[in-house]
């Protein structure tokens, strides 16, 4: 089965608003910018503390049931439920500099 997903800069197939697509629907290899986190407060705080802040650029490395993404050079594994709660916006070109 082909993975449903979208390429950088294109509108995602499964997303109504291209500017806020769940991380769980992003194509692996894409760089995205975090727009909104819809999570309970204490999980939210921890996510922000480890680098998942709003407006932070992250890169999705792998997407299966869970996802692996890179935030400031560290790989994090997130399960599907969490990835669904992270709303992101695609970045037109692959981000070269993660430290920005």
């Amino acid at each position, binding site marked *: 089965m082909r993975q449903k997903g979208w390429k950088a800069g294109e509108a995602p197939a499964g997303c109504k608003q291209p500017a806020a697509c769940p991380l769980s629907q992003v194509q692996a290899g894409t760089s995205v910018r975090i727009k909104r986190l819809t999570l309970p407060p204490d999980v939210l705080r*921890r996510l922000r503390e*480890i680098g998942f802040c709003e407006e932070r650029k992250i890169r999705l490395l792998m997407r299966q049931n869970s996802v692996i993404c890179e935030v400031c050079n560290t790989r994090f594994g997130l*399960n599907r439920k969490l990835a669904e709660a992270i709303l992101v916006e695609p970045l037109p070109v692959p981000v070269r500099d993660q430290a920005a």
Partner: protein
Amino acid sequence: MSDAGSAPAAAEGRRRVAVALAGNPNTGKTTVFNLLTGLRAKVGNYPGVTVERKEGRLRGASGRTEVTVLDLPGAYSLSPRSQDERITRDALLGRLAGVPSPGVVVVVLDASNLQRHLYFATQVIELGYPTVVALNMMDVAEAHGHRIDAGQLARELGVEVVPLVASAGRGILRLRSSILRQVDRPTVGSWRPVLMDLPAPFREETERLAGAIGLSGAGARGQREIHAFCLLMEGSEIESADPGRERGAGDALGEARRRIEARGLDWRALPVESRYRRIGGICERSVTETIPPRETLSDRIDRWLTHRYWGIALLAIVLGIMFQAIFVFAHWPMELLDGWVGAAGNWLAQRMPAGDLRSLLVDGVVAGVGAVVVFLPQICLLFLFIGLLEETGYMARAAFIMDRWMMKLGLHGRSFIPLLGSFACAIPGIMATRTIESWREKLAVILVAPLMSCSARLPVYTLLIAACLPERRWLGAVRLSGLALLGMYGLGVGSAMFMAWLFRRTILRGDPPLLVMELPPYKRPALGMVLRHVGERAGMFLRQAGTLILAFNMVLWFLATYPRSEERAAHYGAAREQLQRERAGRDAHGLDAPGWAERWAALEREEAAERLERSFAGRLGRCLEPAIAPLGMDWKIGIGIVSSFAARELFVSTMSTVYRVGAAEGSEPVRLAEHFRRQTREDGSPVYTARRGLTLMVFYVFALQCASTVAVVRRETHSWRWPLFQWAYMGALAWGFAWITWHGTRWLGMS
């Protein structure tokens, strides 16, 4: 404040300074700790919790100052989300009973993850202690194209920054002298707390809060404020569970947050964002990127190891190899140890006069303790494998792969690590649950962790397999013994999964967990560290064998030997004499004595059996017999089961004591499994049939026979309720499944 942690040591006039070693998880903090302290680390626990406390003396400190290094658990921030992190925060705030407030703080950072790790590091620097930043993994950062200007970073942070490659031991001398400089001439960093960047209401509320809560502990105003600030931005869930929380703090916090919100400010997001903004600036000025980010080897490996299907298959193979290896590779050293134990017993037996003392030393001490010590190689191998998996970074991937399946049980992938660790021993497994954030999930994992077959069951399984199952091989390599062992482990895993599922749907219901897990880059394991860990564990096992098991064996020997009946001894003495006369008479006439040897042996067996039956242990076993008779077991096995409730591996030594004490004196020491095979029931049929062996093994899979586990669960759950519940439910499962096995195997046609 700078001398908060340095107090003059009473008699010698020596100064004592505590150095706290803090940092994110996966920074190589423990390697740095080992390099700083050498081999003199002391491992213990923090009061009241089972979080491991490691401390050691700093090597190379001058004679007049005693510098202790304390390795704190890894933390992502000063607002804790787990017990580990709470310990770190409280130790850094000097609020932990029995732990001196730090005189110097060393923050270990992963240079290749500078931005993220500076989050915690800047929080720690803000506390205002004399601080040294240890910039570890400089080689990795270079390889990834991050060129870090340590001097610039030091200026930005206002503290000393020491670049390190701890895995190669580079930079450690500089770190040590930097620490010693801070000990002698403490300088407090000029880092401006991030609070200064925030809008005024934050500062006002923090100041007010610091006063209102009246935070105890270290007096410095700065620390109180930072603490208040951390409390302010903490989430809500953890607060009620925080035992260090002062009364009334909750109300004051709620009000402060409401007032901030009323000004249209977000107390959750702003502090984090503000800190990251400043860190972003620091990184821009002190880091030069030389190569654009590209796919690393770790990424390529990950594509396979975390693959939806390949990942699972590889994990299964890794675990399969691990268990097969434990059984096969350990065989040779175990034989060797076994030989030594036998030789030691013989040596002692030949040099001592016959009597109770010889019996105690040979049958009780040497045979009993030896029977357990023999399993040391297997235990070492198990810890070696688990240590290697942790060290290479594969363990995190295993947890990640398993998350999908663990979710179905209502657990998240991180619970996989405590459960896997429980294969070695439920105690470190249960201790590893401290990283699980949700209390209900943590409890569910604690309740099922002892169902994973621990290394203490291994001796029992090994012995029973050797004694009861025929040796068969398929395709040259697959052995029946290995399969049976795998089956027992599988049964334990399956039931642990089922029980976890059941608990999460009944008594421990909770929201499906969210997983976020750091996947550290793969690295070649530091073999020295793994071996050191294995050594520590082996030492613990031997200490236990030398104390608890030794004491238990002596008690058992006593129970199995006394009371002695003079009358019965005289009766058997007479019977023996008669047999000897008979033999002498036949010999004198040059006649053979057909069947004489058999009759002699039968008499000896009869006497031994009767002696054991009349002993205290025999009576205890008899009391238990009605309960285990439906499982096809006799009172002798009952003695073994009773003793196993102190610790499972005692089954092996107990049975060896029971049968040896029962066996006629002067008989050759035989290998235990062979001895088992020779045991017969009253009707002459062998005791240890395949069917009885299986039943007994199944019983051992389930029963919670380990006093130490019960004690640890009591400590972790702060009540007797859960350990008792656990003991009872596992006991019920053990009896039920053993019954099914005993009757099911007969139904299947086994005798």
